[in-house]
């Protein structure tokens, strides 16, 4: 059927919360009522990157973005725009993702918002699964070489070179190997993996299959947060479709390579984002981390060599195979290549999801892509990397966000969450919520973290209650230092990041509470 107009509705967890399904139904009904259902097509797609535009959709070919649409608006929009050809100006704007969402630089999110994530045909129509075919023809060695050339590094936080990781498992002589996708995104203020999976689930499957081929794994698990219902259903649908097309299962593309994928649903535990805790959870246990060594690449799931990768990392692989490792390596900085997906939140005009080259400065992210601070607000700090991240002050606005530059400031890229805080923010309140987060999410296995998290919260509560003295601030630092040095895994080693940066850059805000009877409000 030929439509004169297409409406691409963004259906993700943000818009679902705003009632997108009802609006879509209303629009379909309204179009049918006006006899326009054969002329105007309504499609569902994944995220464009916006998260604060309510129910929103793009009209093609007009290239207009309607936002914050309610069911009540629908009759008027249909009447004015699609019957009379007069766009409703107060509800729409020119779709200019090219600028504010850095559309042209997208690799991982390239198809998101453009294709129907629930249709494998649409993915194939944009050259989907071609890289898998190419990879199978190239052979393991050549694919591995390409990935190494690309210098792709893990996007889950630690930044370990993906090629090296795959090679480690590929080298193991064990016959049974696994690949596990870490989709247990739980870092506060992070939802990039969610939107990647919601927007383009087949890209993850393709990337995962390529990685499995290199590592020699015949079974893959996607461990996904229990709360991510839409992701789960879209991924399960995608797996079913890929199986039907012979893109998963036995003898893919006649190459002799077999690969099965299963979705495993978590049940609410941030710690399961730690790869060894995730493996324990996958096996049916408590999500406690394991000792390393042995590393999962050597002895992981059920003691077998296992590659554990983040969603975003694997979603880069199809493009690397398609365009070559050198192309990928040319993007970003010499040591941090490619793009990075960030979630920008807080006091900015355009909070949302962006994908920009590694090395983009914090300032650019805030002011160019994030649309700057809300009217009348002044920048105070950016919390980069989520709860396990660091507060960056004004002085560091020009810092390039990549693995090297951040580590120079003892900060981390982490999950790619960036929370922008304006001058009005009560920093202590933010710190307290972070420490409460750790207290809530500590698995309790090791003493330093189990006890340390509680002590930290107690100290902050004491400061907030105005009952602390300077020694308590020192104790925040010393306890978090003990945790950093002796905690079993990254979770317990992390609280020092927000604490130390807070004390270093915003110590005066804490001092305001010392010795004064003041409430934190």
């Amino acid at each position, binding site marked *: 059927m030929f439509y004169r107009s297409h409406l691409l509705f963004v259906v993700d967890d943000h818009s679902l919360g705003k009632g997108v399904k009802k609006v879509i139904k209303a629009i379909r009904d309204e179009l049918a009522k006006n006899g326009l259902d054969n002329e105007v097509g309504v499609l569902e797609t994944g995220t464009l990157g916006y998260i604060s535009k309510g129910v929103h959709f793009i009209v093609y070919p007009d290239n207009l973005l309607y936002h914050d649409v309610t069911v009540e608006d629908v009759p008027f929009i249909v009447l004015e725009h699609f019957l009379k050809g007069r766009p409703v100006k107060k509800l729409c704007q020119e779709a200019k993702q090219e600028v504010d969402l850095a559309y042209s630089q997208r690799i991982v999110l390239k198809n998101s918002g453009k294709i129907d994530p629930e249709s494998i045909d649409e993915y194939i129509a944009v050259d989907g699964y071609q890289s898998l075919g190419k990879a199978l023809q190239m052979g393991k060695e050549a694919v591995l070489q390409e990935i190494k050339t690309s210098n792709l590094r893990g996007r889950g936080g630690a930044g370990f070179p993906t090629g090296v990781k795959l090679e480690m498992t590929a080298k193991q002589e064990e016959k049974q190997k696994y690949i596990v996708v870490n989709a247990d995104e739980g870092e506060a203020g992070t939802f990039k993996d969610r939107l990647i999976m919601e927007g383009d689930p087949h890209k993850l499957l393709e990337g995962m299959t390529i990685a499995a081929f290199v590592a020699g794994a015949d079974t893959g698990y996607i461990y996904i947060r229990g709360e991510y219902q839409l992701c789960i259903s879209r991924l399960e649908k995608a797996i079913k479709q890929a199986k039907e097309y012979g893109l998963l299962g036995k003898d893919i593309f006649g190459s002799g390579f077999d690969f099965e994928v299963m979705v495993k649903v978590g049940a609410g*535990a941030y*710690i399961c984002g730690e790869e060894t805790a995730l493996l324990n959870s996958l096996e049916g246990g*408590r999500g406690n981390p394991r*000792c390393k*060594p042995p590393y999962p690449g050597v002895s992981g799931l059920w003691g077998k060599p296992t590659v554990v990768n983040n969603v975003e990392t694997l979603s880069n692989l199809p493009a690397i195979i398609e365009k070559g490792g050198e192309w990928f390596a040319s993007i970003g900085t010499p040591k941090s290549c490619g793009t990075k997906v960030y979630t920008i939140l807080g006091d900015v005009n355009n909070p949302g999801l962006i994908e920009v080259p590694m090395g983009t400065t914090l300032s650019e992210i805030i002011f160019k892509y994030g649309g700057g601070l809300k009217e009348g607000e002044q920048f105070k700090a950016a919390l980069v990397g989520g709860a396990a991240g660091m507060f960056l002050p004004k002085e560091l606005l020009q810092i390039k966000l990549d693995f090297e530059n951040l580590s120079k400031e003892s900060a981390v890229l982490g999950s790619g969450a960036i929370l922008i805080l304006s001058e009005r923010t009560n920093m202590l309140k933010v710190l307290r919520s972070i420490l409460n987060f750790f*207290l*809530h*999410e*500590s*698995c*309790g*296995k*090791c*003493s*330093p973290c*189990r*006890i*340390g*998290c*509680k*002590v930290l919260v*107690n100290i902050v509560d004491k400061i907030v209650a105005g009952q602390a003295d300077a020694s308590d601030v020192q*104790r925040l630092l*010393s*306890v978090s230092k*003990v945790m950093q*040095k*002796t*905690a*079993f895994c990254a979770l317990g080693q992390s609280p020092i990041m927000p604490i130390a940066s807070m004390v270093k850059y915003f110590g005066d805000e804490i001092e305001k509470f010392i010795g004064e009877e003041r409430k934190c409000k």
Partner: protein
Amino acid sequence: MQIVVNGKKLEAKAGQTIMEATREGDIYIPSLCYHKDLTPTGNCGVCVVQIEGMAALKRACVTPVEEGMSIITDSPDIRKLRKELLSLILLDHDVKCPTCDQNGKCELQELINYMDISESEYEPIFTKAKVDNLSDSIVKDTTKCIHCGRCITVCNDIQKVHALCVEGRGFESKITTAFDSSLVDSPCVNCGQCTVYCPVGALKEKTEIEEVQKALFDPSKIVVVQEAPSVRTALGEEFGMDATKVTVGKMYAALRKLGFDRVFDTNFAADLTIMEEGSELIQRIKEGGTLPLITSCSPGWVKFVETYFPDFLPNVSSCKSPQQMFGAMVKTYFAKQEGIDPKDIVSVSIMPCTAKKFEAKRPEMNSSGYQDVDCVLTVREFIKMIKGAKIDFKNLPEGRADQLMGQYSGAGTIFGATGGVMEAAIRTAYAILAGKELDNLNVEAVRGMQGIKEASLDIPLKDSSTVLKVNVAVAHGLGNAKRLLEDVRAGKRSYHFIEIMACPGGCVGGGGQPYGSDIADRARRGESLYKEDSKCEYRASHTNPMIKKIYAEFLGEPLSHKSHQYLHTSYKPRNKVTGKQD
């Protein structure tokens, strides 16, 4: 391979952790959760060390050695970290040292002291909780728990009892039973292995010292005491004596000094058990009864089989354990012999075992009209009483037991070690079936610390040319027992007779033995029993003159009506969640 520790070369074996290699090399790295018998967890974090070329500190207990690895185990920085970490751990521990059973043995106390940590100026943060003292055997006080995880490993991985687990997560997490119910409402079998491995006294036995003291003070009571075979193996080590030797005479002397009216010996009842159980085995073989016959001396094992393997209940010997046989005989045979009203007798036992407390309280253990055993003390409680009376145990003159129920054979003695019941039974069963004694009384195949032991024995039947082939197996530790039974159930193994002891090593490794006993201690104690056995005048139960006497004067013969009435019992399945009989 070679590693470098604090600048000095040290030989290490591939596959060892840093902790194992350094302990072998006599270099001490402090730790709270590490125990050499158990799979390390890395929970406490106290054992962090610096490895050259690595930015982060590593836990010695879980980090494998590598060729040429250079390790710093102590430095001003590491010491400072350890002290701060221990201070934090101490805040989460309800410090009640003077009233704590572990006082003086507590691993946390020792470490805090050794590291010269001063009292914290900060408020403790431990979560207040009610002490669970509803079980007859084990008391659990989670306010002392430091979450080392040893009890979890022992209860679930080694014993496969699955009573204790971690509930919840993070600071709120708690080491307890499912739904935080009392141990009495859980599948806990009272083996007490958790109490042996607990470093801080969060798990201990339910004490009965006061009841015993009360009886000792009461002039109207005749207080009779029995001591299990393995008790005498652990006393020497506690009082600074040669730990490889048993201390029988001093044990009797100490009991007399404490005021017990009659000092007998459980070893006598062990001989009695062999008479009954050996006869039961022969009867089952001859009459086509349920086989394999499985021993019933270990009350932890008995509750375990009732809970997890009810299909094996017909296999379990109907014999009461030596403790209970002894108790029943005290209130009948002894009372009659001495003309005492059994109501005036208080029957006390000294046991290496926490489950014996539960066993003594089983309601069916009263065939004489009185509870067979009134009070059970663990070895630890016994030691506490000796120390409490300031008895100079080491220098006590050797005492003697009272004859009537105090004489025993070497077969009774070895009951305390894994394989001992089997060996004792073989000695007697062989003699009964073959009409002559075994040429070599030492049945080496069933001795030692291997988890499951098997042996096959040819017994030439007397007055016949047939040779009976008897297949036997021995398992100690309930995990091994489970493995063995599953194989038997699946038809992979088949036996006539199986000995099962709940605790690793048998009673020498019982849950009532001194805190901190490790596998090596258990093995050594077992050997001391075999040494004692070899020196005994009588080495098979049926040769013990006092056993002959009790049958002649009271019981008649093994499996007689009277025997059945007093010395045998029955079992009922239990609920896997509540541990209760329906």
